[in-house]
C-alpha cells in the first residue's frame, strides 16, 4: 500500500493495540488446530486429562504406557480398525466428481448468464440466489422419499449429483462474475472470424478463464468436502464419507472411551484443507471478493 506508508504515521499506542489485537486473533484462529493436532498423538488420559491440562503437552500418561510421548495408536484405531480409509476413499471420489461436474455445468451456464442481456437471464440469477439460501437439510427432506422409491438412496453417484445441484447456484454466480471480466469483444471477434458459439467458448474464452475456474473449483471442493447434511442422510453406512463417519464415531466411541479415534480422524480430515490453504491462499482470497468488489 503506497499511500499507507506515504501519508500515514502511526502513533505508538495504536501500533501496540494493533499488534496485540492481531496476536490474540492469531491464537484464537490457529491455536485450536495445532492443539488438536498435538493432542491426537496422545492417549485420552493425556488429551482429556482429569488432573492437569499440561499432561496434554508433556504426554505423561502416553510415555508411561508406550515409552514415548507420541503415539500413533489413535490413527491406527481410526484408519485400520474403524475403516476410516474407506471413508477417505469415498470422500475423494465424491469431491473430485463434484468439482469436475460442477465446473463443467457451471462454466457453460455462467458464460450464458454473463453474455445474455435478456430479462429471463437476470430472473434466473435471482432464482439461483434464492436457491443458494435454501438450507440444505430442507432439500434433503424432499429427496429421501423419491430416492427410496427409485431405489437410488445410499449410493455415491446420488450424493454426487445432489451436491452438484446444490452447488450450482453459487458456481453460476461466481463464474458469471469472472466471465463478466472477459471482454465481449473477444467473443465477437471470434464469431466474426467464423467460429460458432461453442467454438468461441472452447478455444477463445476458456483459455483466459483458468484463474476463475480454479478459484471456483476450490469453493466447489470445499462445499463437497465439508458437507454434512447431505452426506449424512443420503449415503448408507458402507458409502459414508469422512464427515458423517466422524459424526458416527461420536455416537459409538465416546462411550467406549475411544474418543481419540475421533480426534485422530478429525486431524486427518483437516490436513488436506491445510494444504489447500497453503497452496491456494491467493485464489481463495480472490474468490471471496470476486462477487463483492467487482459488483
Amino acid at each position, binding site marked *: *500500500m*503506497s499511500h499507507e506508508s506515504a*501519508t*500515514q504515521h*502511526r502513533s505508538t499506542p495504536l501500533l501496540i493495540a*494493533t499488534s496485540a*489485537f*492481531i496476536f490474540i*486473533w*492469531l491464537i*484464537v*484462529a490457529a491455536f*485450536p488446530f495445532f492443539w*488438536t493436532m498435538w493432542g491426537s498423538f496422545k492417549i485420552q488420559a493425556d*488429551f*482429556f486429562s482429569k488432573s492437569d*491440562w499440561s499432561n496434554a503437552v508433556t504426554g505423561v500418561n502416553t510415555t508411561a504406557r508406550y515409552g514415548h510421548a507420541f503415539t500413533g495408536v489413535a490413527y491406527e484405531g481410526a484408519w485400520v480398525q474403524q475403516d476410516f480409509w474407506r471413508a477417505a476413499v469415498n470422500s475423494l471420489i465424491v469431491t473430485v466428481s463434484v468439482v469436475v461436474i460442477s465446473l*463443467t*455445468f457451471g462454466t*457453460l*451456464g455462467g458464460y*450464458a*448468464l454473463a*453474455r445474455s*442481456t435478456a430479462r429471463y*437471464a437476470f430472473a434466473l440469477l435471482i432464482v439461483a*440466489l*434464492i*436457491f443458494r*439460501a*435454501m*438450507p*440444505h*437439510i*430442507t432439500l434433503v*427432506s*424432499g*429427496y429421501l*422419499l*423419491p430416492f427410496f422409491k427409485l431405489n437410488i438412496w445410499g449410493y455415491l453417484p446420488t450424493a454426487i*449429483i445432489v451436491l452438484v*445441484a446444490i452447488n450450482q447456484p453459487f458456481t453460476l454466480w461466481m463464474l458469471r462474475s469472472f466471465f463478466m471480466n472477459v471482454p465481449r469483444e473477444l467473443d465477437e471477434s471470434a464469431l466474426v472470424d467464423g467460429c460458432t*458459439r461453442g467454438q468461441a467458448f472452447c478455444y477463445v474464452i476458456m483459455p483466459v478463464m483458468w484463474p476463475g475456474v480454479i478459484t471456483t473449483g476450490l469453493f466447489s471442493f470445499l462445499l463437497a468436502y*465439508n458437507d*454434512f447434511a447431505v452426506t449424512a*442422510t443420503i449415503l448408507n453406512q458402507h458409502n459414508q464419507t469422512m*464427515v458423517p463417519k466422524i*459424526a458416527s464415531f461420536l455416537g459409538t466411541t465416546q462411550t467406549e472411551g475411544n474418543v481419540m479415534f*475421533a480426534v485422530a480422524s478429525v486431524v486427518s480430515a*483437516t490436513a488436506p*484443507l*491445510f494444504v489447500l*490453504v497453503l497452496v491456494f*491462499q491467493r485464489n*481463495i*482470497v480472490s474468490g*471471496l*471478493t470476486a*462477487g*463483492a468488489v467487482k459488483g
Partner: protein
Amino acid sequence: MPHRTFWLFIAPSGIAMLLFIALPIVSVIVQSLHIENEKVLIVSESCGPFGCKETTRVDEEASAALNAERPLGRFNGIGTYTNRNHLAFEEVSAAWSGRSSFADFVDGVMNLPFYKALVFTLTYTFVSTPFVLALGFTLALAVNSLHRWLKGVVIFATLLPFIITPLIGSLVLFWMIDADGIIGKTLQFIFDNPELSLKASPALTWITIITYGIWHSTPFAFIVFYAGLQTVPGETLESAMIDGASRWERTRYVVIPYLAPLVVFVCLIHLMDAFRVFEPIVGFNASANATSLSWIIYNDLSQEVQLFGSAGATSVLTIIGVMILLAPVVWLTWRDYRSA
C-alpha cells in the same frame, strides 16, 4: 446472445437445479401435507378358563404392505403445521390465556420445539452478524497496516476457521471446552469452580455456539473488507489528510462510506449461512439446550421411523423464513435492474 444458444448453454445446470432443488421443494410441500400411515392393528380375543381377554397387536405385515402402497402416508392437510411440534396454535393460545406474566408466556412458548428452534436460529443469526462485521472490519484495518510478509501469515491463519468443515471446527472447540479440556479446565481455575461446565446451562451453550459462529464467519468478512480497503482511492485519503482529518475521521468519513456496499454483501451471505446453522449443534452435542430449524429437520429424519411429514412441514416453514429474510434484498436487486 440468441435465445436458443442461451438455453443450450444453461441446460445442464438448469436441469440439475430443476431436478434437485426445485422438485425437492415441491416434494417437501406434498410431504408436509401427509402424515405417517396408521399401524394396522389386530384385535384378537383369547378365551381361557377365567373368561375372555382382548389383546391388540400391530400387524407388521399389513402395516408394511400399507407403507409400500402409500409411502407418503395419509393426507393430513395442514394438520402437521398446526400440531404441537410445529406452529402449535392451541398451545400458544393456551399459554397466552393462562399466562401470569409475559415472561411466563415466553417460557410456555419456549417449551414448544418449533419456537425453541426458531428463537435460537434467529438469535444466532442476528447476534453473530454485528460481531462478524465489526471484528472483520477491525481485523482488516489492522492487517492492512502490517508488513507484507506478516500479511501472508496472518491471512493464512485467518482462513483456517473459515475453510474448516463446520462439524470438525465445532468438534475441535468442543474438545477444548470439555471439562477435561484445556479451555474448560482454565475456566474452572479462573472462576475457582471445579463444577463449571459450558455444556450445563442453556445460556452458556448459546454463548458457546454463537462464539463458534463468530469465529467461523469473521474471516469471510475480513477478506472482503481487506480486499475493499485495497481499492480505497489514495487521493481521497490524502486530500482528507491535507484538510486536517484525523485517522479516526478518515476512517469514519472516507473508508467506511467507501466500504458500505460490501457491508450489504457480507450481511447477505452471512444471514443466509447463519440461518441454516446446524453442524455446531451436532458437534457441540448441544441439542438439549439449543436446537435450530435445520437441526429439528435432521432430527425428524434420523429417527428409527423417519417422520417425513413433520420434517416436511418444518422445511416449508424454514423456506418461508428464508424468503422473508431475502425479500428485501431480492426486491432491491430487481428494482436496480429495472431502473438500470
